[in-house]
């Protein structure tokens, strides 16, 4: 049953996943070609200096990528379920209603996590050519809130899409927009360090709030 469920979810999101991976790859290639180019032109020591003491973030094009991926996968996965209230079919499957949502959600989250990990691993590998571990660590620390924000976006957009009433979709969107903004407040390198754990914890808690929309749907809010 799980295999079937994953099969359906995969059919919905696979195109978006490949596009997300492709985009990420293009972004990473772009970053490192640019780093290589700049290091040739301004000298590596100066390039390091601009990161360390001027806060020039060479990977800033990655900033909204996780957000876009989270958003796109959430839409690809949950929008088809809302068309014609197709989620009824899903709830009618011989599985518990909460269970089916949790499995769908876990699968989606794992796929996003995989994409994110691929990006982070490739980024680390690419950075290791040009930078010492100190700069790589500071970079990863700086982009961590962006990736957490991508996960939070996925969870919240799922909640919004499955909510049966338009007015509440609007209200949820307002709260979600306010919350997701937190992850993307412009900040200097490493400034998010003390808040990463709380944000990660909240994101983890958000992982099953989609049940709330599912419940409201099943109790006939429409």
């Amino acid at each position, binding site marked *: 049953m799980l295999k079937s469920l994953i099969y359906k979810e995969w059919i919905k999101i696979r195109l978006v996943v490949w596009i997300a991976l492709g985009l990420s790859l293009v972004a990473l290639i772009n970053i490192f070609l640019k780093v290589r180019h700049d290091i040739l032109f301004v000298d590596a020591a100066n390039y390091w*200096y601009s990161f360390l003491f001027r806060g020039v973030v060479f990977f800033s094009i990655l900033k909204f990528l996780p957000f876009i991926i989270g958003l796109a996968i959430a839409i690809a996965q949950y929008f088809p379920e809302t068309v014609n209230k197709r989620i009824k079919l899903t709830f009618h499957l011989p599985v518990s209603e909460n269970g089916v949502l949790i499995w769908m959600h876990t699968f989606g989250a794992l796929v996003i996590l995989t994409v994110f990990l691929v990006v982070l691993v490739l980024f680390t590998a690419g950075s290791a050519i040009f930078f010492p571990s100190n700069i790589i660590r500071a970079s990863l620390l700086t982009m961590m809130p962006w990736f957490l924000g991508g996960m939070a976006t996925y969870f919240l957009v799922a909640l919004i899409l499955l909510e049966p009433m338009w007015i509440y979709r609007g209200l949820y969107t*307002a709260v979600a927009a306010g919350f997701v903004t937190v992850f993307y407040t412009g900040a200097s390198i490493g400034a998010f360090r003390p808040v990463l754990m709380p944000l990660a914890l909240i994101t983890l808690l958000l992982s099953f709030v989609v049940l709330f929309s599912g419940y409201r749907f099943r109790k006939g809010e429409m």
Partner: protein
Amino acid sequence: MIKFSRYILVAIGILVTSIVLPSLFWTIFEKVPRSPNIFYSCITEDFIVVDGSTRKSPEGKEYTSDEYEQALPFMFYRQLMADGTMPDTIKGVKMETPSIARASSFYRYTPKRLDAPVPTLWPLLESQSGKVNLAMPEDYFRIEKRMEFIVARTNEINEEKSSLFTDALTAEGFIFPANLIAGLPTTRKSCDEGYFITDNEGSLFHVKMIKGEPYVVRIETPEKLDIVYIEAVDLRSKEYYCYVFTRNQGIFVIMDEVYDLQRLPVDGFNPAIHTFRLSADLFNKCLTILGENWYEAIAVDDMYQVVGTHGEKWEGLYERPEGEMLATLFPFETRMRDENSSFVRFYFKPSPGIRWLIFNLIALIAAVLLITRRGWSWKANIPDLLITAVTGIYGLIATQFFPNKFSKVKPPAKK
């Protein structure tokens, strides 16, 4: 599980509204807070308090622009020279441009510098290259298990240089890793004095590179200092190398060459929340500690002996009308940024006093009315009412945004 998921959403709703609503409020009502500059005049031998464009003596006498400039001849010597009003001598000392310029300095510390992400790689310049201009090195150092130099071009460790410096540090009794590293990683300074570094046990060291060789000095402190922040400066007078901030033992400067620690005569300074300002001229230094709504200024002579003090206190944020209004409307506020930190956190600021209880009560009544109107069960809504009672308008909004439709809904009463 589902009820729990709703409470998570309500909590997020409260978090978001407690960030957004007060920030909207401040956008509309915030006024520029008072942040005076205090100087000490060697002419009047008294303080001058500058608030925007008004300058006053501690007694309240207002200075005109000319009087102000003449009272601070070191700050405005170029204007005074142009006007021809610069005294030839002050206190028997002949006024010459180079000595004036050399003695003048300004410094400002804010808690944002203490609570901030710090670089872990630093360039160690050659201090005596024999060239007029300083040059950036091709490598950067870090002090973790040892002192390592990494060559930027190859991204590889220079083993030879690393061992050389690690050994020099170890010989002086340095315990790895470094705790604080402070220096001026720039070529735009009069000369290079390397870095002031505390080791893992808090001992203070001076490290620089002279003709490629390590120069390491262990700086003895009169007592064990809990150093939290060091800022190196490039004074033209070469009076001292840097400012040393301790958690609660005050502020020190490390005198050039001799490495004596001179304690600045300021008391009660807390580097986590207070701002420190210093303005120096040939005769005096004016040291100011600023809190949120007060300052304490101390003037010292060139031997760091106190020659005068002056302080002021004014209305705090929550004593001003807009602060009172905020403390009435909202039981607390959450911010992602704080004026005392460079880090992003959830800064939770409870409103002082109990005026917010009134608005919490109004929010609670609104929640009760909404439940009554919808004919929802009271028992199922007790947690919501409690949330609203505690978090006021935030809780009201959050519990309405994520409705509590778990209890069986009673059919509406027939008309």
